[in-house]
């Protein structure tokens, strides 16, 4: 079972990963965007861990909803509302249970990803964070590791795509050949699940 500690660890692990990879994310965004994705997410997840460290909500749902609101309040740009909505809607779908199963998380995460799709109007193959999030949501029913692999494969696959949403779409053909920054950070978020689970030997394969 995954308790609010697990979700706290997830957010912390994401913050650490985003901080470590911020330069790379900004570099990727510099090629086909506006060179701010790394600093955007670093600012956002630092704010998330700050608020969670101060006052940790006692249910997974409340915790993710708070994290999502915090992202919306501090990130800005495209990724702020999108990642914020992802966590807020995942949290909302988890309801007010004190603990949830990996299966419940997988389902809720699917709802969160769907909300991202609805908000941004993007679909699979548009070269956005969805190209990592959609396969990850799919594989999350299996295990954290499977979700991680799916997200990473999805992010890598964006290299060949032509962007149809977000700033990269302005480049038309010239967006091909570069990995999408948002898909790359989405893979970090999903990978952090494994880390959060590893602390308690939870690999997300139970249901």
């Amino acid at each position: 079972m995954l308790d609010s500690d697990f979700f706290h660890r997830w957010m912390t692990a994401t913050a650490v990963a985003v901080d470590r990879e911020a330069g790379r994310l900004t570099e990727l965004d510099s090629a086909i965007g506006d060179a701010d994705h790394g600093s955007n997410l670093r600012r956002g997840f630092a704010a998330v861990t700050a608020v969670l460290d101060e006052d940790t909500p006692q249910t997974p749902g409340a915790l993710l909803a708070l994290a999502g609101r915090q992202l919306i309040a501090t990130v800005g740009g495209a990724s702020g509302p999108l990642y914020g909505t992802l966590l807020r809607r995942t949290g909302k779908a988890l309801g007010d249970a004190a603990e949830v199963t990996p299966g419940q998380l997988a389902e809720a995460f699917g709802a969160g990803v769907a909300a991202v799709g609805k908000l941004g109007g993007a679909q699979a193959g548009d070269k956005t964070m969805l190209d990592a999030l959609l396969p990850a949501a799919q594989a999350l029913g299996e295990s954290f590791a499977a979700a991680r692999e799916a997200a990473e494969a999805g992010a890598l696959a964006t290299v060949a795509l032509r962007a149809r949403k977000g700033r990269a779409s302005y480049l038309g053909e010239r967006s091909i050949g570069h990995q999408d920054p948002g898909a790359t950070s989405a893979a970090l978020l999903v990978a952090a699940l494994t880390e959060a689970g590893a602390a308690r030997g939870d690999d997300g394969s139970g249901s």
Partner: protein
Amino acid sequence: MLINVPETVVADALRGMAAAHPELTVDVEGRLVVRRDAPVAGQVGLVSGGGSGHEPLHAGFVGPGMLSAACAGEVFTSPVPDQMVRAAMAVDSGAGVLFVVKNYTGDVLNFAMAAELAEDEGVQVAQVLVDDDVAVVDSSFTAGRRGTGATLFVEKIAGALAGEGAPLERVAATARRVNESSRSFGVALSAVTTPAKGSPTFDLPPGELELGIGIHGEPGRERRPMMTSGEIADFSVNAVLDDLRPDGPVIALVNGMGATPLLELYGFNAEVQRVLTERRVPVARTLVGNYVTSLDMAGCSVTLCQVDEEMLRLWDAPVRTPALRWGR
């Protein structure tokens, strides 16, 4: 770069604005610049904002006859909904608020969330989406045209109308008409260095330029060997005219991207006027300067707005902001 650390660039700039402009209320913590006399009774409030790095847009356009408030995001990053909600509440006199939103995914999403939240607080909100950049094909294959130079036209003309006490629907409708009557095209002679990245966003050798750039340091649609000022004017003005197809007089904004010397920009204006004359487009007014910028990018953009008599009257109406000032 003339900065302390990348993290404080926006706050530092707001502190500096506060010191230079006692006629504005600057909330450094909240990243807001507001007309000191807001809310003005009986007037629709005009709120805009966006990522920083485009100065004087938007904070430099706050004042009587133009914006009521501007929200400053991080560099090239849309502000967050909280800022916009606080701006809306600060300027709403009961006549409602118009959000002027440049068409970027981030701005659109954050302003949309803010509009919902502000309505919850009892503020009537309308929005105008500015999308004037013809370098982007407006299709389902893109996020739609970017909002660039036309923002200045929308903010000036809608701001003048709001100042006359027009109701929200009329201010919003006129703002939309200005946007629909405007088109832009931009060219970069150098890339941008953002504080966060600290090095140019792309490599542009001295002898080349990028055609069809936006205002966020992104590369353009096409790279070419360096062109003369006259050739750039031909290309840009024709790109704008072929899309706008005006059948009446236009206002021209000949805009520098931030690092283009005024000497070069005025010379470029001479070429822009030549092309307009060749294409038989009457020019009612011309504004030349660095107004909608992209940090330290060298380059220029041309925005044309076809105007009717009302729009021209509102353009000429008095304005008193840090960056745009005329009349009475």
